[in-house]
């Protein structure tokens, strides 16, 4: 979300960018983060950090090749 102005404005408002995490995972993770963090600030940091592949660290150029091993 940091690439364009609109995204940066959202971040300034306090929106936490979760990249490609799906909403189901986000809900559960938020519950866990808030229960285990000292405060909301730390909880926000936990949300943004990839723990169990809920956030993709990179986008492969050819997903089909990656998943099925061939085109």
């Amino acid at each position, binding site marked *: 979300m*940091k*690439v364009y102005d609109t995204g940066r404005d959202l971040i300034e408002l306090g929106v936490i960018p979760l990249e490609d995490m799906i909403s189901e995972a986000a809900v559960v993770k938020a519950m866990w983060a808030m229960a285990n963090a000292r405060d909301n600030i730390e909880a926000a940091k936990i949300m943004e950090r990839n723990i169990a592949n809920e956030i993709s660290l*990179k*986008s*492969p*150029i050819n997903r089909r090749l990656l998943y099925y091993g061939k085109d």
Partner: protein
Amino acid sequence: MIGLEIHQQLASQNKLFCNCSNKGADQSTLIFNRKLRPVHSELGGYDPAAIFEATKTKSIRYHSHPSTSCLVEADEEPPHSVDKESLETALILALALHSNVVDEIHVMRKIVIDGSNTTGFQRTMLISTGGYLEMEGNQKVGVQSICLEEDAARLLSDDNIARDYSLDRLGTPLVEVALEPISGTPQEMLQVAVTLGRLLRASKRVERGIGTIRQDINVSVNGGSVVEIKGIQQLDQLIKVIEFETTRQLGMIQIAAELTKRRTAYTSEFTVKDATDILRRSPSKGVARILETENTQIMAIRAEGFDGILGYEPYDGVRLGRQLAEIVRFYGLGGIFHSDELPNYGITESEVTAVKERLNIGSGRDAFILIGGDRDRVQFAADAIIQRLNKVTQGVVPETRAATLDGKTIFIRPRPGSSRMYPETDVLPIKIDDLILDSLRGSVPKSFDSYIKDIMQKYHLNRKLALEIFDSDRLKLFEDTVKSTKVQPTFIASKLTEDLTSLRRKGLNPDRLSDKSIKMAFQLLDGGDIAKESIPLILETMLTKDINEVKEAIQILGLKQVSECELNEIIDKVIADNMVLIRQKGRDSLGTLMGRTMSLLRGRVDGKKVNSILENKLKQSLS
């Protein structure tokens, strides 16, 4: 004056703007095509070199592998934020060089038109300015600037139809340290380069090995402009390159003086005429080769007042004709012919006369140049030659040259214009405050000297060995091996330095031995499975027989430990075979007998053990 600029690859987990690694992929799994077109930069204006590159309209093929590239390398996804680890390394190096870090780091785009960046630009950011490098004897060399930038894609091949790049290297973080120009001997410059390299390596945050550090130098002589020389990969090239380039520049100044001497009136009239018909049936093989391809022509350029100047050689190998030939290669032509060297190369006297007539060259002091090739390129090349000839009286022309492996320099492109850099708008600026810098001060490397003293103390090495192991690419392996085995550090260090060097002298390439396999050899030694003497043999066999497993080499050499019984048998035989020598020399024959025994055992036993048994048996047989 020489300004040294080094580009050092950083040892980070990720690339600078994405989470790919730059290691581990051999074969690409995907190839995609692109074409590059130049556009006005966001600040307006074209880059002249870009215009020519665009007319080549080559297709560019990028080779990618999922572990080393993602959509960011393919320019299909915006860059991620600057890699934290790389940024910290750059800041640590800036602090180590006493440089002033900027308050806010802005990432910029530097236009690149040869396809080595899929985006058409290289992302770079200024980290700090000023500072100094401490040399031995309290001397200081000033630092101009330190930048953090991404490396370009790796060129795989280039023919006239397409250019192939591999994306594995694209995006790898590099730190560029530019030093202030200083005047010094080539040897002094080498010392500066060595000292800087050592400081970087002392940080333990940079990559080591061939190709991870690249030197560029900016060379100027008194009365000349600055020429940029790129791509000095190995430090032993540095001295040769400096000497060659300094001589070349002095030669250009001499040529300029010679030309000025003879031309009282200076006109920039250079006539260009087509000469294809004159040379169509020339016996010259070079000309025939050009003309047998379709759509080619030969152009003749009249260079007023240049008779004798094109071939004038003030120093060995330094000629204007040669400089012009290098320039036309940029435009894809093979070279030039010029009147100072003709008739020759198959071009006849009558052809020379015909060209002179065509160009209206009388008995004056005019020369001519012949160039040939593809019709579209020849015009560009002719313009470039005329431009260059107009600058001869300047002496040294600012340009970018490349260093060759044998220590010479060749022209690669004219010095680019300044409209090449503009802000990278996809990455936010990074504020740097004292809090951040203070947290990194603990990681700033101490001086190289105290680092060496630490190594000497910790591992009980003498200074020479400590320096050698530090400078080698195997320092990490050395420390690992000391930690995980009980083998003496001095022994390990000497195997990793002296022995590997002697393998190189034998014409083998010890870089092909992986850290893992060398460590395995030491572990086997530690466990008593092999003897000390066998280590160099094992390493050599792995290289000559091209195998990767230490155990395989041991099998091939038959290097099992010798049993006590077999050892005694062998020694008895040696003594029996050499009775004549023993009767002659008595105790003094021990040395020769040791040599013969060891060569039979070929590294399967510890020398000390053999020596004591042999000495005893020798004593027995003499008594």
